[in-house]
């Protein structure tokens, strides 16, 4: 579903991604781990073109999205949901409005349709009673669940998560991971940058270990966590486990 070929990204002279090649299949859950500053976020942001790749090609549903002449980036982005570390909810809008705005603007839904969809999603993340609350009236865990609902409201074909629980107090991590597990169970295609090794072990079909802008090692959770082949992977895991 998402195919990446020899992806490079420079920020000025800083070479952040140094040739990443990978393929995420339909319904697959891929967890990305690696030290801070290794390029995980940049990789994820290239996938929905929030960052413009410096070189290489990205295909989504067999369409080359890095081909600017052929593609409208907005059409790509509405098929790929993204959840951020710091939620990035719109503070001037209620939870309901946060979720229903983009479907109205981008998908052309009527207000009634968009709000019905938003209520349905609030139900699924267990926050129907918070529909009229503003983000600053919600806990971190609740905000992140609304942010997930906001992304889902566009009915994306794939979801990207960039450390969705890293900004949360420990007692709120579970409620967010539970929502993500629900998506896994529904067969959503997901790429998740995370430090939650328990989550990766439990739900990932494949784990990528990225260090210094390259995929150092990839494999099933068992392969990566129990029998890492690369010295750098062992090093990293010993530090965080």
């Amino acid at each position: 579903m998402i195919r990446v070929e020899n992806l490079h990204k420079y920020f000025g002279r800083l070479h952040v991604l140094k040739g990443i090649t990978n393929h995420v299949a339909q319904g697959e859950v891929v967890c990305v781990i690696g030290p801070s500053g290794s390029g995980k976020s940049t990789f994820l942001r290239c996938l929905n073109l929030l960052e413009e790749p410096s070189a290489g090609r990205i295909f989504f549903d067999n369409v080359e999205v890095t081909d600017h002449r052929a593609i409208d980036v907005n059409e790509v982005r509405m098929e790929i949901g993204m959840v951020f570390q710091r939620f990035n909810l719109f503070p001037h809008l209620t939870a309901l409005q946060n979720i229903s705005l983009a479907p109205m603007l981008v998908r052309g839904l009527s207000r009634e349709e968009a709000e019905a969809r938003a209520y349905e999603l609030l139900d699924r993340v267990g926050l129907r009673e918070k529909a009229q609350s503003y983000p600053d009236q919600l806990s971190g865990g609740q905000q992140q669940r609304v942010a997930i609902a906001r992304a889902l409201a566009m009915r994306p074909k794939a979801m990207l998560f960039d450390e969705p629980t890293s900004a949360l107090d420990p007692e709120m991590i579970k409620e967010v991971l539970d929502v993500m597990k629900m998506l896994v169970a529904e067969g959503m295609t997901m790429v998740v940058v995370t430090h939650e090794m328990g989550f990766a072990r439990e739900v990932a079909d494949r784990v990528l270990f990225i260090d210094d802008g390259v995929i150092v090692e990839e494999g099933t959770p068992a392969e990566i966590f129990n029998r890492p082949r690369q010295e750098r992977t062992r090093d990293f895991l010993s530090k965080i486990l």
Partner: protein
Amino acid sequence: MIELYPGRPKEVVLTLYPSLKTWDFLHLIFPLLLKAALMTLILTVVAVGNGIIIGTFCGIGRLARNPFIRFLTAIYVDLIRGTPLLVQIFMVYFGLPPIIGAIVAKLGLGDGNPIHIPSFPAAIMALSINSGAYVTEIIRAGIQSIDRGQMEAARSLGMTHAQAMRYIILPQAMKRVIPPLCNEFIAMLKDSSLVSTIAMEELVRKGQIIATTYYRPAETWFAVAVIFLLLTLPVTRLVALLERKLKTGD
């Protein structure tokens, strides 16, 4: 209004009694000055209103992807902020008429003589262009103060840049620019007095006329200052209140 001289127009009273007591003199000129202050207020409201419209577009333009638009808006801001308002007023009032005259002649509609611009439209034009440049920078700073993640979240949902601006960034930025916009309003209330130089009869011009007509500059300018304070103080207080409110809860 005191009724020292019932039935006589104030102007007549003033010329007839040059040795009026200070307090009585102030009583007589205050209403005249207040009427002129209304013109100051109108000039300021219209100029800053136009400035907000100009500034919103140019503020967005300052951050546009297109380097040509960025360049043009930057030049505008630099030119206006780098020259005195007084010079800008003179450029509109004295500089534009011959240019317009020449253009009109080129179109075959005139004889090439300067086409006079009356004080009021000239004043409005100069003040609006001036205010627009300052508001541009206020809006630009307001937009830039919004967390980058807001634009990214909006774009990640498939919104266009324009939709993200309209529905996500600007509503948040507008809240933050209210205090600096109030400050711009206060500055313009005071600076608009410069159009007194092109015979625009606002508060300061009226003060000049009264002071020289009745040879009583001390009391006149004191009264003018008091009226300026009456105009600016409420806005100053409002800004302080808003800033405190915006600090708690965004």
